[in-house]
């Protein structure tokens, strides 16, 4: 029997999430007394709460605690992803300060709403990382998704933003329905929502195998939508292209990371190898990375190219899902840890790349095609260098953490006997070099046209975010060992 009511012991492990939610409510309270006047204060409060949540996540590291009757669990795994999600949120919150004022002057009054929606979505994503019950997982996922729909459509007078928001919402609602239906079938088959109880019921053999397989497959589909895996990706290019670019950075990084956390935890804890869904994961992984790369290669728009590149990266991370679910002879904790580290690095470099687009395309209004980036590298060397770091690191060259994280990801696959999956990933990375270097060619090699826009304004916050992301990406190349060790240790604890 579950005890009703909760104690202080339940609240402490969830301090990071509570800090984020509390500050969001505080900003709403301030805003309701002085409508639209305190946008900058809201950003400051949000930044402070993200910093506090970040510190709390680091302070909690090493503890393992259950909260609220085991529906939430705070362990190394969830805290690792808290850190990754909070890094992305911090970059997005800080850069929004310049971005929103310049690009959406009419939206500057709504800066508070924007920040509050960001914080609610962040809290939902962090709760997804700690959920260990289908009930809390579903609620957390919706808490992350609903503000994201509103944020994608945030530029209310911009047709692309509205179109992206509509597509994201309709397909997102559809995927929620699939997810909830899948949850209902899993519940019917096993009689439990708790991941551990589901695994116990499966181990006891007291389940309807057909209902369980269908249910877990529908849950997989719902989460595949979240991480934008092909063929559940149709919303992603339009939503990322239409959304305000800072939001595109947020949704394509943080939301994807959160979807993967849930995928990892669900399919390690609740559905162990008895449910034979490894083929689904392999197919999703291969199709996703191949399609993402080929579609990215033919784009004219840098932003849309990045949207497809983020789909391709979901394919790489799915390699980890395929490997640990196959229960092959190799070290599946290492493979899972590699997937986790790759997501952390990916979050930084992908956010950074989108923020460069936010600067060039939206802030300066230079345009969105590759040609519009001509000569920008020499005019803004710091941003040009940062973009070079992001692009080459996304492609997997040793300018940043992307090189080592991809290396360990493929090494984990080879270790577990999936050498051909690693090979496919390697071929795809080589292909991706084509479109990533295309940006750099236009930025550094081509001459700027005579009539290029003025680049004299220096948005400090946006610059700072881009440079921070670049420095962190490079630093992860040299300081990758502690990251992969922490991730592998967390994965081992999860797989026990």
């Amino acid at each position, binding site marked *: 029997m579950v005890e009703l009511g909760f104690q202080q012991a339940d609240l402490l492990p969830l301090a990071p999430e509570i800090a984020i939610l509390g500050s969001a409510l505080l900003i709403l309270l301030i805003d309701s007394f002085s409508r639209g006047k305190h946008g900058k204060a809201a950003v400051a409060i949000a930044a402070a709460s993200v910093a506090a949540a970040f510190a709390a996540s680091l302070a909690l590291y090493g503890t393992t605690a259950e909260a609220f009757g085991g529906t939430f669990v705070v362990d190394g795994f969830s805290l690792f992803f808290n850190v990754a999600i909070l890094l992305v949120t911090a970059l997005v919150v800080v850069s929004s300060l310049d971005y929103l004022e310049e690009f959406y002057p009419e939206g500057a009054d709504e800066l508070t709403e924007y920040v509050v929606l960001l914080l609610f979505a962040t809290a939902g994503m962090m709760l997804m990382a700690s959920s260990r019950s289908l009930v809390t997982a579903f609620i957390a996922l*919706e808490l992350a998704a609903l503000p994201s729909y509103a944020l994608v459509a945030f530029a209310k007078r911009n047709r692309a933003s509205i*179109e992206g*928001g*509509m597509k994201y*919402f309709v397909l997102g609602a559809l995927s929620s329905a699939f997810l909830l*239906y899948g*949850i209902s079938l899993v519940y*019917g088959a096993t009689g439990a929502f708790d991941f551990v109880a589901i695994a116990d019921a499966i181990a006891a053999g007291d389940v309807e195998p057909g209902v369980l397989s269908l249910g877990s497959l529908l849950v997989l589909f719902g989460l595949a939508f979240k991480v934008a895996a092909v063929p559940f990706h149709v919303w992603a290019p*339009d939503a990322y292209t239409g959304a305000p670019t800072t939001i595109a950075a947020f949704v394509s990084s943080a939301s994807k990371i959160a979807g993967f956390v849930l995928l990892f935890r669900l399919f390690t804890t609740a559905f162990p190898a008895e449910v034979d869904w490894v083929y689904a994961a392999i197919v999703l992984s291969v199709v996703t990375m191949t399609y993402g790369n080929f579609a990215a290669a033919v784009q004219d728009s840098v932003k849309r190219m990045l949207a497809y590149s983020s789909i391709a990266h979901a394919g790489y991370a799915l390699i980890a899902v395929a490997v640990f679910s196959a229960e092959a002879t190799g070290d599946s904790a290492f493979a899972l840890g590699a997937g986790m580290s790759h997501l952390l690095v990916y979050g930084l470099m992908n956010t950074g790349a989108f923020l460069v687009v936010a600067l060039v395309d939206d802030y300066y209004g230079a345009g969105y095609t590759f040609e519009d980036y001509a000569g920008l590298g020499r005019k803004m060397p710091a941003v040009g260098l940062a973009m070079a770091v992001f692009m080459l690191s996304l492609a997997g060259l040793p300018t940043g953490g992307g090189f080592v994280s991809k290396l360990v990801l493929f090494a984990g696959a080879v270790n577990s006997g999936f050498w051909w999956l690693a090979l496919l990933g390697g071929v795809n990375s080589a292909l991706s070099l084509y479109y990533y270097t295309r940006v750099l060619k236009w930025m550094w090699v081509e001459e700027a046209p005579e009539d290029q826009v003025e680049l004299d304004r220096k948005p400090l916050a946006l610059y700072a975010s881009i440079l921070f992301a670049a420095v962190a990406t490079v630093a992860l190349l040299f300081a990758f060992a502690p990251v992969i060790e922490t991730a592998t240790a967390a994965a081992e604890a999860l797989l026990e």
Partner: protein
Amino acid sequence: MVPPSYYVLLSALIFAIGLYGVLTRRNAVVILMCVELMLNAANLNIVAFAAYLGDVTGQILVLFALAIAAAEVAVGLGIFILVYREYGTVDVTLPRGMRW
């Protein structure tokens, strides 16, 4: 007592009707109603299983799911109002500025 398989069949039917509507309709509001139908099919399933298993957790999830569905409608209708302002209709096939 009605055996749970009856409820499962009924809910599968409702889910299929909802899915059919989502795939064939062009009006965004009707699509939203069809999605609600699919969500309620899942809710019906959960309630039936909860009653059958004598477990109260399922019924609690349904309460949350209903609240979430209401929030989803609020966000969705907000977005549809923006679509209506721009395009004068809520036909989901009309906004097609982004194609490759």
